[in-house]
C-alpha cells in the first residue's frame, strides 16, 4: 500500500471537471483515501484522524475516525471510481466523529468512461456529541449513460452535532442513480441535506429517497433538492421528515426544472409530526423555468436557450 499521493490522470481530470481543487488533492500531507475498483491507490492520515482500510474481491472497506475534540483543518479527500468502461465496485465507508470533533470531507466518485458499471456504496456515519461534519460528494459518471450508481447512507447524529451533507451530479450523464439516505437526530442536532442533480438524456434516471427522523428535542433539519430534468431524463425526489419530539423542526424544499420533451420530474414530500410542539413544512416547485427570470435575462440580451441554461446552472450550482 503506497502512502504517496498519486492520483491517476483520469481521476484528476474528472475531479477538475467537478470543480475540485486538484492541486490540493495531490498536495503532500493532505489527508486522503483514494481507491480504484478494489485497489487502494493511496492514503494519508493526519494527527487525530485514524484510517483503516481493507480491500476485498469487489471493493474496499474503509473506516475513518476523527478523534475526540480534534479539529481537522485541511479537507479530507476521498476518491472512488472505476477507470475502465465496465466493472463493479462496492465501497463500504464508516465515518465516525467522536465528541466535539470537526472535519470536512470532500468526496469524488468517478466513472469517466462508464459503459457498463455498477457502483454500490454503503456508508455509515456517526456524529458524536457536539461534533461537526461537512460532507460533500460530487459524482461524474462519464458521457455514455453507462453507470448504475447506488449510494446508501445511514447517519446517526448525537446530541448537539451538526451535519452538512451535499450530493452533486451536474456534469455529464447520469445513467441510473438511486440514493437512499436515512438520518436520525438526537436532541439539538442539526442537519442540512442538499441534492443537486442534472440529467442529460433519455437514459438518465434519478431516484433519491431522503429520510430524516427528528427524534430529539429541538433537533432541526432541512432537505433541499435542486434538479433539472433535461434531454428526456427523469428525476424522482422523495423527502421525508418525521418529527417526534418537542421543538423538533424540519423543512423540505424541492425545486425541479423540466426542460425538453420526454423529460419528467416528480417530487413527493412526506411530513409526519407526532408531537404537538413540533413542526415540519415543505415547499415544491416543479416545471418550467421561472418566466420572470427568463424575461429578465432576455432583456439583458440572452436568447431563450442561453437564459434557461444560465438559470439552471445557478439553481444546481
Amino acid at each position, binding site marked *: 500500500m503506497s502512502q504517496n499521493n498519486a492520483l491517476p490522470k483520469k481521476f484528476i481530470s474528472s475531479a477538475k471537471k467537478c470543480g475540485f481543487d486538484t492541486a490540493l488533492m495531490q498536495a503532500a500531507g493532505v489527508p486522503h483515501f483514494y481507491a480504484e475498483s478494489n485497489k487502494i491507490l493511496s492514503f494519508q492520515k493526519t494527527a487525530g484522524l485514524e484510517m483503516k482500510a481493507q480491500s476485498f474481491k469487489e471493493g474496499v472497506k474503509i473506516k475513518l475516525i476523527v478523534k475526540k475534540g480534534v479539529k481537522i483543518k485541511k479537507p479530507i479527500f476521498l476518491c472512488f471510481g472505476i477507470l475502465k468502461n465496465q466493472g463493479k465496485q462496492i465501497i463500504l465507508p464508516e465515518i465516525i466523529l467522536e465528541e466535539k470533533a470537526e472535519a470536512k470531507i470532500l468526496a469524488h466518485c468517478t466513472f469517466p468512461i462508464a459503459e457498463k458499471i455498477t457502483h454500490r456504496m454503503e456508508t455509515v456515519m456517526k456524529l458524536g456529541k457536539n461534533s461537526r461534519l461537512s460532507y460533500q460528494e460530487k459524482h461524474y459518471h462519464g458521457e455514455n449513460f453507462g453507470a448504475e450508481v447506488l449510494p446508501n447512507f445511514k447517519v446517526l447524529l448525537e446530541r448537539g452535532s451538526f451535519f452538512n451533507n451535499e450530493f452533486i451530479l451536474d456534469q455529464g450523464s447520469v445513467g441510473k442513480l438511486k440514493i437512499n439516505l436515512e438520518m436520525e437526530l438526537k436532541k439539538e442536532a442539526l442537519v442540512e441535506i442538499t441534492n443537486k442533480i442534472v440529467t442529460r438524456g433519455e437514459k438518465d434516471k434519478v431516484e433519491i429517497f431522503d429520510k430524516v427522523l427528528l427524534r430529539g428535542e429541538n433537533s432541526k433539519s432541512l432537505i433541499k433538492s*435542486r434538479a433539472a430534468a433535461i434531454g428526456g431524463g427523469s428525476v424522482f425526489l422523495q423527502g421525508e421528515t418525521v418529527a417526534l419530539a418537542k421543538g423538533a423542526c424540519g423543512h423540505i424544499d424541492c*425545486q425541479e426544472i423540466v426542460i425538453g420533451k420526454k423529460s419528467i420530474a416528480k417530487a413527493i414530500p412526506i411530513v409526519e409530526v407526532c408531537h404537538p410542539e413540533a413542526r415540519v413544512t415543505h415547499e415544491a416547485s416543479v416545471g418550467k423555468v*421561472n418566466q*420572470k*427570470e427568463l*424575461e*429578465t*435575462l*432576455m*432583456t*439583458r*440580451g*440572452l*436568447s*431563450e436557450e442561453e437564459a434557461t441554461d*444560465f*438559470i439552471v*446552472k*445557478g*439553481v*444546481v*450550482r
Partner: protein
Amino acid sequence: MALLKIKNLSVKSGENNKEILKNISLEIDEKSIHVLMGANGSGKSTLAYALMGISRFKVTGGSVIFLNKNITKLSIDQRAKMGMTLAFQEPAIFEGISVQDFLRAGNKKISRKKTEEILSLIGLEPKKFINRYVDQTLSGGERKRIELASVIALKPKLIILDEPDAGLDIIIYRELYGILENIKRETKASILLISHREEVGLIADRATFLRRGKTICSGPFRPVMRKYCQSLKRKEICLKTMPCLKNL
C-alpha cells in the same frame, strides 16, 4: 434626434384580449430622461413591456421605431442586442447566481474592475456585494440597485426603468435620482423612467402623461407634470413637496 419613436401604438393583453393601450404616441430624445406618469392602472408598465417585446402583450396597431429601425416585431433579446433594456418594477431573484455573474450575463467582456465601478456608481460597496448571490438574502433596495447595475453593465442606449423609486425611503430615492443622472452622464443613455413621484422633476427632461391607456400629453417635463397634478387635484401638494416646481 429621437432615439425612440412610438407611433399610434395599441396593445392588448395576450391573456384575455383586453385592450390596454390605445394609440400611444411619444418620442424619446437621445441622452435624455423621459418620465412616464399616470395613475395606477393607466398602462405605464404595459407600455414598458410592449416596448421591450414581452410576449404577454400583443401589439395590435402602430409601431415602435428605435435607432430609425422598426422593431415592432423583434424578440426581447433582439431588442436588447440593439441597445434597449428594461429593469422590472419587482426584480426577479436568481438562486445560485453571484452579483458578478449576473452583471456579466449580458456582457461577457466586461472586466471585474468595470463591474466594481458600476457597483460603486449605484452606491453598493463592491467588495461586500460582488460575491453575494442575487437571491432572497438581498434586501429589496439592494436588489433594485443590482438591477440598475445590471442594465448599466450592458452599455445600453435606452434604459426603461419601471418605478425604481417605489418602496424606497425618502433619502434613498433622492440618492437614486443622483444615480440616474450619473448613469445618463456616464453611459450617455436615455432613460424612460416610470415614476409616481413629483420629485423626478429634479432630473427629468421630458415627460408623458398616460390616462386609461391613452396619451394625454407629452413634451417638456413641467407642463406635463402640471397637467398630471391638475388631473389628480394635487397641485398644492406638488408645490409643497417640490419648491422647484413653483413656476409650473
